[in-house]
């Protein structure tokens, strides 16, 4: 154990206890100091790990303890020296108040009570905070600037938690708790404040869709506001695609009402930085832990910010007003990375797609040209071919004519060769016909032969060589020759009888 350190811690405890008018063990028990001296905590986590040091104690003394352990405790050491050194000369009132105020600055704390009086002046708000149990009262003041940033309108009877440090006002010697921050106590009060502010901002049109700006495509410079500790920033950085983002990071508290100041100053910082988009992220929490994001000043800062703002704040039932007013609201830090990655991923796909389309088009163009070429060649080929085809056809038809001609010739030949037979046959036929005719004529001649008639008794009368067939050929006294079968005789016409 570092006894030197332990001694320093004990000295500090004595001073602190004196200043606060309490017993030293109320500050820290011996055991706790011994543990501190042994473990030499370097930061809040290590200090908080020591038994007997909780949030309240840390808020009150944490910084001082760490300063002593880390050997840079100027104020604590100097103050103890100040008191321990035998004082020869008395303090002037002013110097002593300065001394006290230096000490009191170390008594930073969070105190809870009920507002029992309010006096609002130009630059400062004077009020008093009353203990709910025993009616103890402490005078308080808050700078107007802090009051407005804080966004809570004080009312008498309102239960609040103040954060600040006491201070003695030299002209009056009056001690006041200088609050830098005030927060409402209890879900009910918070919810009420949330609803009121939401209604007010909504009426102003701050949440309107048309106010919202587009998140730019391919954002590169990103302003990031969140807490340095915790998983959120890690998740964010892990899920953010590697697209050459340039992230400018502002660490800010994000828990409870105390975060407002950090958040606002971070936003102010980014307002004159060259960024494409501002990102505010925080993991999920209750209405109470998300108080800062329902702060009017913060909400207005976001609304007036000169670049698009994306809020990724996890929340329960009530959407933080900061998210409502942001240009883009998602419910987790990881979802913010999706928003940021989106246009980049699309760009990557677009490149691939364009590549395919581009080469596709060109290949089409080439193959179209090739087709045209092929077609032309084919056409030419066909044209040439048709010339030969005509020849071929002419040749064919010529060949066909030759064949038909030769057929015709052989036909004629055949015909010619048949003629003799035909002639002979006709001759034979004609001859036989003639023969027949002759025979039949002969038979007829035989039938009609005058000799035959004469034999039958008929006779032929001739006169002057002609055969007499009519009486008109005769005249009386005319001599006629009459032929009978076995000879002729002469006769004279004696009478003529005409019928």
């Amino acid at each position, binding site marked *: 154990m570092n006894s030197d350190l332990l001694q320093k811690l004990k000295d500090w405890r004595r001073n602190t206890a004196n200043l606060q008018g309490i017993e030293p063990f109320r500050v820290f028990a011996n055991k706790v100091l011994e543990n501190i001296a042994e473990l030499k905590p370097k930061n809040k986590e290590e200090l908080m790990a020591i038994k007997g040091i909780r949030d309240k104690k840390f808020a009150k003394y944490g910084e001082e303890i760490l300063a002593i352990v880390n050997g840079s405790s100027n104020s604590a050491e100097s103050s103890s020296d100040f008191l321990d050194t035998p004082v020869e000369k008395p303090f002037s009132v002013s110097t002593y108040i300065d001394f006290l105020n230096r000490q009191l600055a170390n008594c930073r704390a969070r105190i809870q009570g009920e507002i029992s009086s309010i006096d609002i002046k130009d630059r400062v708000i004077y009020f008093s905070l009353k203990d709910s149990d025993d009616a103890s009262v402490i005078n308080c003041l808050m*700078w107007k600037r802090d009051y407005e940033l804080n966004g809570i309108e004080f009312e008498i009877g309102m239960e609040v938690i103040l954060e600040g440090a006491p201070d003695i006002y030299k002209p009056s010697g009056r001690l006041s708790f200088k609050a830098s921050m005030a927060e409402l106590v209890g879900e009910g009060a918070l919810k009420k404040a949330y609803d009121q502010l939401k209604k007010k901002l909504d009426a102003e049109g701050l949440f309107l869709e048309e106010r919202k700006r587009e998140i730019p*495509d*391919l954002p590169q410079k990103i302003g990031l506001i969140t807490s*340095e500790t915790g998983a959120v920033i890690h998740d964010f*950085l892990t899920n*953010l695609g*590697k*697209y*050459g*983002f*340039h*992230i*400018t*990071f*502002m*660490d*800010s508290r994000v828990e409870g009402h105390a975060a407002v100041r950090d958040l606002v*100053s*971070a936003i102010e*910082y980014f307002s004159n930085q060259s960024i494409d988009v501002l990102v505010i992220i925080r993991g999920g929490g209750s209405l109470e832990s998300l108080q800062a994001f329902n702060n009017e000043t913060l909400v207005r800062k976001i609304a007036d910010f000169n670049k698009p703002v994306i809020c990724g704040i996890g929340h329960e039932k009530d959407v933080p007003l900061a998210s409502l007013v942001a240009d883009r609201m998602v419910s987790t830090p990881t979802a913010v990375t999706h928003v940021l990655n989106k246009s*980049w991923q699309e*760009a*990557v796909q*677009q*490149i691939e797609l*364009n*590549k395919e*389309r*581009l*080469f596709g*088009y*060109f290949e*089409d*163009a*080439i193959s*179209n*040209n090739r087709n045209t070429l092929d077609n032309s060649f084919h056409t030419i080929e066909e044209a040439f071919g048709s010339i030969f085809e005509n020849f071929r056809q002419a040749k064919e038809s010529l060949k066909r004519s030759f064949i038909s001609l030769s057929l015709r010739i052989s036909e004629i030949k055949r015909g010619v060769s048949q003629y003799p037979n035909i002639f002979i046959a006709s001759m034979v036929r004609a001859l036989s016909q003639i023969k027949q005719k002759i025979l039949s004529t002969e038979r007829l001649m035989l039938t009609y032969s005058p000799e035959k008639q004469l034999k039958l008794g008929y006779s032929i009368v001739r006169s002057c060589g002609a055969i007499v067939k009519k009486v008109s050929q005769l005249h009386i006294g005319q001599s006629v020759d009459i032929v009978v079968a076995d000879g002729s005789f002469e006769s004279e016409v004696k009478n003529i009888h005409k019928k």
Partner: protein
Amino acid sequence: MVDKKFNLKESLRKLNEIVNWFEKQEEVDIEIGLEKIKEGAKLVKDCKTRLSEVENEFEKVREELKEESEEKEENW
């Protein structure tokens, strides 16, 4: 390494233009098309190279601001 001045957004726009050019042509002039495709291929390559070489940069600025705001508080 792609030129420092290389602008991805601009290159994507050019690439799109080339694709649109091809889209609009009823009959692609092969000579011009070849020029375009050469340019397009280079753009695709450059874009991909640019995308493959990027890493996120991270810069923390809290401290700077703290000092600044402390100065301010002093002045109150």
